């Protein structure tokens, strides 16, 4: 019953989306006064999709095996949290999540948007409804999450132990909120291009949405990287895998958009470029979801390899992105840009920031799709991986990170003061770091060496905007910027340290043997069998010490029977200056056991930096929200309740 309710809600929501779109057209033209209806319809659409998603969650929570999706992806013996998380751990469920976020974002936008002009708002809601329609169609026609099985089987198939991890519970919803949150920016851009009302008001309306989506994307990508790191058992955290790149591209576009919006808000400039970025960001989200689900690129991460569904998604992509690009091409001449910027000014700094970010985005895009195009044209197969991306995007990213230290110090319009003087200390610190690495690690590769240099510079330069006036009276948004930029330096330090100082020990050791990795002495005390809820395991006991005191680490190999599978659980211990990462492998006929041990100094800074970047964004969002709320309370427009609700 619940599944049918969910499906019905979905159909209704689709109908409402159609209504919302149809009504928006004459309303924008001015022939109909449908604003209030459209808003109400958007809210209703959000409620209905939320109902459908809730229905799916309940059906999974109850392990209702008469629903095909539950049968495929769940099992009565699964712990409760993973039963529920299983709802979005599959193609149909995650598509339903996508559509829910799309509709709910539209609903929240319809209720809360105050700063946008009315016509633009309605046009944006129409665009949002158009986006929804395609994805509703995809769900209802090609990926029905509520399909039934008759007769209902006795037990589910989905006890894959690898999906029973907190990472699964957290990572997809965060990323989806991010990807689909960018749809509001897309719709606003489309709406503004339709009405040609591209101005600073639009930028201020778009900013919280882009900021919110960007924060979630940052968190999602950081969490995903850490999940890969501890789950895959080889100590890597980023592989430039096509699906990873598919998540990075919307993030790069959103970061550029975030900065470009500031220029649009402050100077009513970069109009066309900001609109293009807003369209590009969500387009990248759509490209990403297409790549992951269509089987077009080989990836460890691709799931639901289904060319038929892929074709549907490709059609949606072509229609939405194509229409947006056509609209842009047609309307761009109507956007009036102002005078050029001074070379040394905040605006120019942001333009260069955007340039570098977009070039990096272009590089990731080209590198990811290049093998496909070469194969299409010449039939030859080649691979593009980390060596390419690190070599090409790495230096650009370092250049960008260095400029991040300079840009925020520049004034709007024209910087007259000597900014470089304020940067002497950071520059000296950077140079010191460089010299230290040359002395301590003479054979270091150039990229990690420059990474340390730039990180030291940026760490010192990032807080400088706060030192102009009393830091405690600086706006929260400025604190947010400082924290995020500092976070970049932190993450960069972690990446450089990981590349430079990681010690690795691979060995086949007998119980009683001692191995050294970095400053640690690790005694291998043997392997004992053990068992868990639905697996048997072999657990190695390692006693690690460096100086006084010993720590025990117990890496395990888990053996599952249903389906027969073997997984490796690394034992990781975090210290203030690094992580000890240990993995036990198979037994050797000689009586030894494969051991993989790493000492990774300061590796946690990578994800700490990512978290800081997101926190900075949250501070900025909070700051602007508080500012907006204060302004609202001070100047409450008479009759706003009547107008908006």
């Amino acid at each position, binding site marked *: 019953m619940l599944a049918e309710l969910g499906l019905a809600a979905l159909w209704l929501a689709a109908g409402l989306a159609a209504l919302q779109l149809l009504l928006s057209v004459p309303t924008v033209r001015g022939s109909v006064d449908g604003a209030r209806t459209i808003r109400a319809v958007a809210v209703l659409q959000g409620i209905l999709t939320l109902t459908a998603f809730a229905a799916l969650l309940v059906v999974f929570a109850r392990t209702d095996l008469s629903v095909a999706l539950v049968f495929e992806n769940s099992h009565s013996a699964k712990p409760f949290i993973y039963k529920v998380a299983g709802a979005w751990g599959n193609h149909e469920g995650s598509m339903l999540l996508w559509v829910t976020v799309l509709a709910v974002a539209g609903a929240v936008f319809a209720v809360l948007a105050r700063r946008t002009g009315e016509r633009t708002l309605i046009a944006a809601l129409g665009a949002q409804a158009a986006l929804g329609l395609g994805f509703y169609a995809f769900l209802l026609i090609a990926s029905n999450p509520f399909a039934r099985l008759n007769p209902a089987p006795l037990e589910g198939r989905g006890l894959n132990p690898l999906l029973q991890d907190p990472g699964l519970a957290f990572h997809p919803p965060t990323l989806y909120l991010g990807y689909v949150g960018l749809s509001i920016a897309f719709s606003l851009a489309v709406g503004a291009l339709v009405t040609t009302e591209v101005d600073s008001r639009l930028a201020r309306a778009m900013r919280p949405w882009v900021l919110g989506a960007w924060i979630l994307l940052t968190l999602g990508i950081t969490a995903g990287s850490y999940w890969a790191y501890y789950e895959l058992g080889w100590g890597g955290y980023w592989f430039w895998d096509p699906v990873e790149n598919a998540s990075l591209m919307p993030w790069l576009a959103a970061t550029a958009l975030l900065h470009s919006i500031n220029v649009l808000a402050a100077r009513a400039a970069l109009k*066309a470029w900001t609109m*293009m970025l807003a369209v*590009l960001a969500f387009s990248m989200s759509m490209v990403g979801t*297409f790549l992951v689900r*269509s*089987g*077009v690129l*080989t990836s460890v991460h691709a799931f639901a390899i289904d*060319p038929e569904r*892929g*074709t549907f998604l*490709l059609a949606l*992509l*072509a229609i939405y*992105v*194509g229409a947006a*690009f*056509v609209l*842009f*091409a047609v309307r*761009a*001449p109507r956007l009036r840009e102002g005078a050029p910027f001074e070379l040394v000014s905040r605006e120019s700094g942001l333009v260069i920031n955007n340039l570098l970010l977009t070039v990096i985005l272009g590089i990731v895009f080209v590198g990811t*799709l290049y093998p*496909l*195009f070469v194969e*299409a044209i010449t039939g030859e*197969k080649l691979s593009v991986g980390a060596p390419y991306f690190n070599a090409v995007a790495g230096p650009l990213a370092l250049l960008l990170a260095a400029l991040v230290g300079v840009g925020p110090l520049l004034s709007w319009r024209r910087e007259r003061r000597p900014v470089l003087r304020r940067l002497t200390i950071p520059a000296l610190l950077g140079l010191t770091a460089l010299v230290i690495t040359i002395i301590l690690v003479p054979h270091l590769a150039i990229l990690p060496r420059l990474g340390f240099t730039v990180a030291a510079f940026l760490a010192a330069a990032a807080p400088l905007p706060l030192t102009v006036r009393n830091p405690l009276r600086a706006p929260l948004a400025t604190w947010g910027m400082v924290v995020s930029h500092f976070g970049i330096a932190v993450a960069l330090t972690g990446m450089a340290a990981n590349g430079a100082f990681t010690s690795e020990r691979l060995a086949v050791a007998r119980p009683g043997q001692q191995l050294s990795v970095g400053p640690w002495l690790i005694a291998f005390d043997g392997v004992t069998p053990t068992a868990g809820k639905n697996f048997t395991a072999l657990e190695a006991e390692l006693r690690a010490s460096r100086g006084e005191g010993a720590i025990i680490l117990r890496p395990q190999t888990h053996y599952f029977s249903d389906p027969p599978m073997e997984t490796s659980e690394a034992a990781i211990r975090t210290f203030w200056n690094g992580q000890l990462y240990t993995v036990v492998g198979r037994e050797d006929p000689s009586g030894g056991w494969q051991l993989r041990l790493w000492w990774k100094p300061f590796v946690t800074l990578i994800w700490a930096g990512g978290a800081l970047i997101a926190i900075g964004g949250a501070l900025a969002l909070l700051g602007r929200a508080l500012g907006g709320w204060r302004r609202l309370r001070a100047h409450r427009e008479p009759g706003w309740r009547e107008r908006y609700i």
Partner: protein
Amino acid sequence: MSRAVRFAPLIVLAALLVGLVWRLATPVDTNVHSRLEGQPVPAFSLAPIVPGKPGLASADLASGRPRLVNVFASWCVPCVTEVGVLKQLQASGVTVDGIAVRDEPQALASFLARNGDPYERIGSDPQSSVQIDLGSSGVPESFIVDGRGIIRYQHIGPVEPSDVPMILAKLDAAK
């Protein structure tokens, strides 16, 4: 903004769509093909693994007539049915040699006893070294080597009954 700039995104999108449509229409060939087709067999010498059956060396493959080299293993599931097809080929006069990848003598002996034995020689490749040397990436695979020791054709996956005429034709062409 010039027209070129305004329409550039559309052009990039169009190119992207063309590529993606091509990819969706042409199924991905996940097999990695050896690049040694047309090249001489690399020099190798593999010890015997089954009593009574000689091992395999590259010298044996330049014997003056074409041979079928089958890269297989007893733990390889599709090899079980492939052996039947190989026996059929052997019956048609084809000389079949085997390279047993990562195999043990007893396991291989019982595999041959259970499923049949079309091989004239079987070489033991316990660390996949000759498999890698040939540019093979999995089991089962078969190589047609001509009388002068040049690799003429690589067949990825088990030889199916429907492949038999094609294999015979290629062996004929390799004479």
